[in-house]
């Protein structure tokens, strides 16, 4: 379950940056995650897993920055963002099908993470351990950046009141660009890390989007610790629900989303003001 939560966290952290922090409703998040997986596999074939882990997020982050500069920063209001990013999903999925075909691709986990490790008295697959550690590292890094650095303070100010932030000398344009690129890079990272477990296919663009949205919304937007909590809750519902009450587990997760939206709208206030 921890492994599942960590993977969800990795997939969702990018969305919690672009959607949660910036208030940008990015339905193309799953598509960026898918690109991360495919690019990761392509790089790994030439230069190995560790190069892919570094290069794929950079490429996806650069793509995200280009998309933001070329298209997305011109959109005002959530509905144009929803629609344009949905259009990007269509385009990305078709481009991936053209470039890589319809067959699901797999990525070999690196040799050092192939076996299992003895942790706290149990044997645990090394790759899953790696995912948990990476998830923790991303969560801590993100939390420090958003809540404990001047960069995070500037970002929160720019989201809260863009005009005032500009007046005191914050370059909101480049700050949003950097934030969106970071969200995209995190999506790409999630894609590479998930590829050895889930294998890359074009369904990822859609199938990863909904859990990421749920994690971001349940946890409360704009809050890194909320995203961690959200990932744990969603993973618990999925893992225990599937074991205890399989017929209802798929329903439960959506019921949790609806309940979070209806009963805890205060968690959503962060973006309501400029939505």
């Amino acid at each position, binding site marked *: 379950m921890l492994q599942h939560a960590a993977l969800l966290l990795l997939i969702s952290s990018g969305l919690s940056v672009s959607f949660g922090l910036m208030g940008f*409703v990015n339905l193309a998040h799953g598509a960026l995650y898918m690109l991360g997986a495919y690019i990761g596999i392509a790089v790994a074939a030439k230069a190995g897993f560790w190069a892919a882990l570094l290069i794929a997020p950079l490429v996806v982050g650069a793509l995200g920055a280009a998309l933001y500069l070329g*298209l997305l920063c*011109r*959109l005002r209001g*959530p*509905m*144009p963002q*929803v*629609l*344009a990013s*949905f*259009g*990007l*999903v*269509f*385009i990305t*999925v*078709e*481009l991936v*099908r*053209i470039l890589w075909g319809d067959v699901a691709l797999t990525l070999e986990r690196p040799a050092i993470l192939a076996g299992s490790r003895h942790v706290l008295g149990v044997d645990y697959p090394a790759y899953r351990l790696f995912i948990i550690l990476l998830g923790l590292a991303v969560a801590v890094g993100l939390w420090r950046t958003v809540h404990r650095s001047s960069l995070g303070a500037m970002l929160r100010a720019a989201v809260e009141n863009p005009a005032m932030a500009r007046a005191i000398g914050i370059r909101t344009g480049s700050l949003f660009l950097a934030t969106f690129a970071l969200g995209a890079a995190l999506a790409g990272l999630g894609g590479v890390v998930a590829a050895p477990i889930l294998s890359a296919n074009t369904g990822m663009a*859609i199938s990863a989007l*909904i859990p990421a*949205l749920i994690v971001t*919304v349940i946890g409360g937007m704009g809050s890194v610790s909320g995203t961690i909590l959200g990932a744990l809750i969603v993973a618990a519902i999925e893992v225990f629900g599937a074991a205890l009450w399989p*017929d*209802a587990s*798929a*329903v439960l997760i*959506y*019921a949790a*989303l*609806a309940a979070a*939206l*209806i009963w805890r*709208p205060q968690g*959503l206030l962060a973006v*309501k003001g400029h*939505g």
Partner: protein
Amino acid sequence: MFRLTTIRAATAALVLIALAAWSVHGDYLAREITAEIAILAILVLALDLVAGFGGMVSLAHGAIMGVGAYGYALANLAGLPPWPAALVGIVASTATGGVIGAISARLTGVFFLMVTLAFGQMIWALTFRADALGGDNGLGGIARPALPFVDSNDPLVFALYALLMLLACLLLCVAVLRSPFGHRFQAVHDNPARAAALGFAPERIRAQGFAISSMLAGVAGVLAAQHMQFVSPELMVWTASGEVLVVLILGGIGSVTGAMVGAAGYLLLKHWAAGWTDHWHLAVGLLLIAVVLAGGRGLSGLLERRRDA
């Protein structure tokens, strides 16, 4: 505020007449596509009513339509004749939409979008897992309606019957928007504070509008079940609702006629492109982004603007 301008009435009439003429003179495929266009147009119309005039952009409309389709299928398979079964389907959709609307009406914008996504996916997941509903396999062997003098199993008859239903839904939609309720519904969207100051109950009005829209979606669902004579959870998954939203945006949101233009354009593009490429969604994505960048008024908006100029 909705106005049935001459150009809108003319566009609607033109699309209906062109489709009728195409199915009369065309082959089997033309008739099947016409029926498909009419059914999609009704569903898009239902979405336009809430999204275009009430600001309630729903990702549950595929699921609500599916409830209508399953309601008809189950009632019909249980032995009910088609017309009463159709009533069962439409009532089921209306009730489902009424409940979703009542619970979600206080949310707006993208939060409304996400809560409808959640409800739609709940309905999909329930249907997908329910053995009594055929699960993943769906239900087959559904009857078409008995019509006087003609046989609805004839593709031409069914195409014209579907077009008639589209016309009825179109008139109903216009009547609703022009009614005192329709004015309140649009007022609540245009200026919630002022509407509330006038004594309207915004949440109740929004929920009622959502129920009316769901009724139209139910009509589309019943027609879809009659057309395919088969229902499956595919109808209900959220990407189906997303596709309906895309068609509405391409056709032109908030214009009523945009639903028909969008449905006809989308399905004709799909069937034409499917003949030579597997990647026609690429064009849909590019078109969608182009429409959003152009101001989001869609194909019918383009027509109207040209006339204004």
